[in-house]
């Protein structure tokens, strides 16, 4: 019996200490909260099933467990967990109490009850030590700061990945690293049609003031990303990341006025050249104005 007691105290102790790895004060991300709920729901389900099984066994007095060797270990375990005196022998533990006909039995406190109770007390002590002796005690302020940090980090990573860049938000970049990367991309993907220096070949000249789909970086980005399939310009959005499209379009804009040899004749409409990066380049209405001027 002694071994059993130790065994069950160990199990309940481990259950509480492992199951409560973060001791349940944390609320950092929605995902973790949902996981926590699911864990709890699973624990609850297991518990309910266990209780139902246990009840079924305890109350199935018609089921003769005595003769079944298969159920003997389970029966022993249940007996060790409940220490319940069978109904047939309850006269042995019937106290002399009698209140208006109500009698009281003197069943032992179920060991499983005591183990879990002790476990919750250990949990409580561990919790207080964890947050208020080892930890600073500023539980929720620290959690909030961590949550905000995590969100800021996520945002930073997201913007570094370029996922935040699209035809609306793209801006001209002129740092040498980006432009040289842009040149690389151009050479690999664009030169075949637009010429090594952007002078135009199958595709139009990219160095003059005439554009078919506009000359703002946003326009170029859109053309590269979605392509102009009818005219043979492929859709690059699936092959180049938004950052790469930003780099290559920025590079293209730096080719303006380079007058490469063998330049192809102008195609499209005349657009007023604006130095890329200048703040004035964003409004769509300006483009309309330019068109009217022509």
């Amino acid at each position, binding site marked *: 019996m002694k071994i059993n007691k130790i065994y069950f105290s160990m199990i309940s102790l481990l259950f509480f200490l492992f199951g409560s790895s*973060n001791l*349940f*004060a*944390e*609320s950092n991300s*929605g995902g*973790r*909260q*949902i996981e*926590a*709920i699911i864990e*709890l729901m699973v624990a*609850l389900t297991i518990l309910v099933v266990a209780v139902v099984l246990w009840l079924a066994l*305890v*109350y199935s*007095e018609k089921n003769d467990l005595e003769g079944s060797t298969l159920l003997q270990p389970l029966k022993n375990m249940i007996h060790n967990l409940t220490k*319940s005196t069978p*109904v047939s022998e*309850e006269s042995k533990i*019937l*106290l002399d*109490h009698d*209140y*208006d*006909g*109500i*009698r*009281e*039995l*003197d*069943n*032992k*406190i*179920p060991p499983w*009850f005591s183990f*879990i*109770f002790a476990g*919750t*007390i250990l*949990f*409580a002590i561990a*919790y*207080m030590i964890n*947050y*208020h002796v080892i930890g600073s*005690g*500023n*539980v*929720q*302020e620290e*959690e*909030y700061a961590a*949550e*905000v940090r995590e*969100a800021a980090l*996520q*945002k930073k990573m*997201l913007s570094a990945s370029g*996922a*935040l860049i699209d035809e609306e938000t793209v801006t001209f970049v002129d740092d040498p690293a980006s432009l040289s990367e842009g040149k690389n991309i151009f050479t690999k993907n664009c030169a075949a049609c637009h010429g090594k220096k952007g002078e135009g070949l199958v595709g139009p000249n990219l160095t003059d003031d005439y554009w078919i789909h506009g000359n703002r970086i946003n326009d170029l980005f859109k053309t590269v990303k979605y392509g102009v399939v009818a005219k043979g310009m492929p859709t690059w959005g699936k092959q180049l990341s938004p950052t790469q499209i930003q780099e290559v379009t920025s590079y293209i804009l730096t080719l303006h006025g380079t007058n490469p040899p063998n330049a192809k004749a102008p195609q499209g409409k005349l657009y007023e050249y604006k130095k890329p990066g200048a703040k004035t380049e964003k409004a769509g209405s300006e483009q309309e104005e330019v068109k009217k001027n022509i």
Partner: protein
Amino acid sequence: MNVEKFSYDNQSPKLFAIATIFWGVVALLVGLTIAVQLYVPALSFGLPYTTFGRLRPLHTNAAIFAFVGNAIFAGVYYSIQRISKARMYSDILSKIHFWGWQLIIVSAAVTLLSGITTSKEYAELEWPIDIAIAVVWVVFGWNMIGTLVKRREKHIYVAAWFYIATFVTVAVLHIGNSIELPVSFLKSYPVYAGVQDALVQWWYGHNAVAFFLTTPFLGLMYYYLPKAANRPVYSYKLSILHFWTLIFIYIWAGPHHLLYSALPNWAQSLGTVFSIMLWMPSWGGMLNGLLTLRGAWDKVREDPILKFMVVAVTAYGMSTFEGPTLSLKNVNAIAHFTDWIPAHVHVGTLGWNGFMTFGVLYWMIPKLFNTKLYSKKLANAHFWIGTLGIVAWVIPMWWSGITQSLMWKQFTPLGILQYPNFLETVLQIIPMYIIRSIGGLLYITGLLMLVYNLVRTMKIGSFVKNEEASAPALVLANNKPQRGMYHRWLETKPIMFSIVATVVISIGGLVEFLPTYLIKSNIPTIASVKPYTPLELQGRDVYIREGCNNCHSQLIRPFRSEVERYGEYSKAGEFVYDHPFLWGSKRTGPDLARIGGKYSNMWHYLHMQDPRQMSPGSIMPTYKWLIDSKLDVASTPAKISAMRKLGVPYPEGYENQCIADLDKQANEISDDLLNSGIVVEPETDIVALIAYLQRLGTDIKKGKIAEK
């Protein structure tokens, strides 16, 4: 042996039982009304008396103190006489108790509908009624302990332990939480402010659940369940263990209502860990109840009374497991302020309190009338329709709570709120509100079956007003504690028992409250937080009168999603002048802690006139009478002076200046509204309310500007 003849008083249990049934119907009908109002806001008829904000406290008070309260008294008055083998201590006290309690209920209904309220949940009643409650409660305790003292049974039975704990703790809680400074006959301010008021309120609120809805019903369970099943109680040892641990631990757990609030972290953590430790002591009661039915389960299949009791005890076990779960901070972060909490509460009230009450009534009424229950079939039908009602009530509210909470917290990949419009999250859960009200309707249908069944039972029986009984006189000679039998000895000393219980239940509250009250560092002050202006103070009282706090919290939790939605999270120092605190416990509408300056005066005016003008689809009732109702300006000096007594630093003699200041600010608002084409008298409730709303949460921003 000298056998004495005496008689049991059956009149008191009968009266309380009838009152239980009557108020039960009232409480449930009010509940159904407010449940439907949540999706048919027109059901408030544009009247002040029938808005959600006033009806919801009426529902909770009627359900807890009228329905459950009378059920406790009916059950106690019947059982305590029999386990003590004595008549009630005094028939006169019984009468005072019964009629006093009913009078309190009627006055509560009248005042709550008139908007006379302290705003503190389950303690909304104003100070004269608070005093009446204290007096009548003492009458109850006096009568009950008196009966125990003159008992003929040597020991007091476990049911009575729970009755004693109920009496002493509710007395301590009620008095502790009702310490308030009267301003006028029906208006008072609590002496505590802000964080301290919140801690006291939820020490009370949580333990009102513990010692009004739980311990007395455990007492009832210990008498009526073994009686109905005719089986011995499973374990006397377990009774002792779970009784003392339950009452000791319960009292500590109040702060779990304030997790992630401005309450100091250490108090929050105590709330969490004591709630976890409360799990097994609570289950001790369930186990002793269910295991008492060992060998009687075949009876359960046939007897509707036992069926009600089994579901009641199971519901008790479920909600006392759910409770500790909800006290874990990561679960609470999701569940708090949502419909999950009413779902949790209603497992307890509809399941545990309701079904136990029905079981007791079905058992007791035939006994009082010396007959058999009119229809067992009808009681069975009541059982099934009631159970279905609970399921249809609770499950949609679980889903609704989780759904809405996750919507509140959902960010887009770009880091902005997915559902920035609060209303969108409300409209999402309307279907669940509809199902919930159907659940409520089923439950009420069951109750009406009970009414019919019991009225017929009373008709076929004949009431036994005084039930003859006899028992040997009590001889307590040589009554000394023996080794290992101390508890048995304590059971012979009802007054000593009461004193020990009082000490045990006082510890937790004191340990949590005293440091919060005495140690300054627990509530860091903020220099830019100033007292309300006279007009804002009056507006705050309009807010309290209309019960805005029943649907709107004023507490932004330190979560990114809440800071994003509502602004900087709430700090303890912001509430130092809030007598009472108005944090609220449920967000049926959005949080208002930083509503100040978010909208124009005109927006608020039009929104009160008809919320759907500004937010199509809103479920808030209209408050158009505020536009015409005159502000009670004359009460301002008395309110200022009361606030100063409570420590709010209004300068000496400000009473003479306050009305002029009030008028000045009111004129500014009415002029501003006039500029927008709205003509409104300055001295009206709407202007005061707008002034208050525009102030909310703005002080801390002024501090930031000053720092820069």
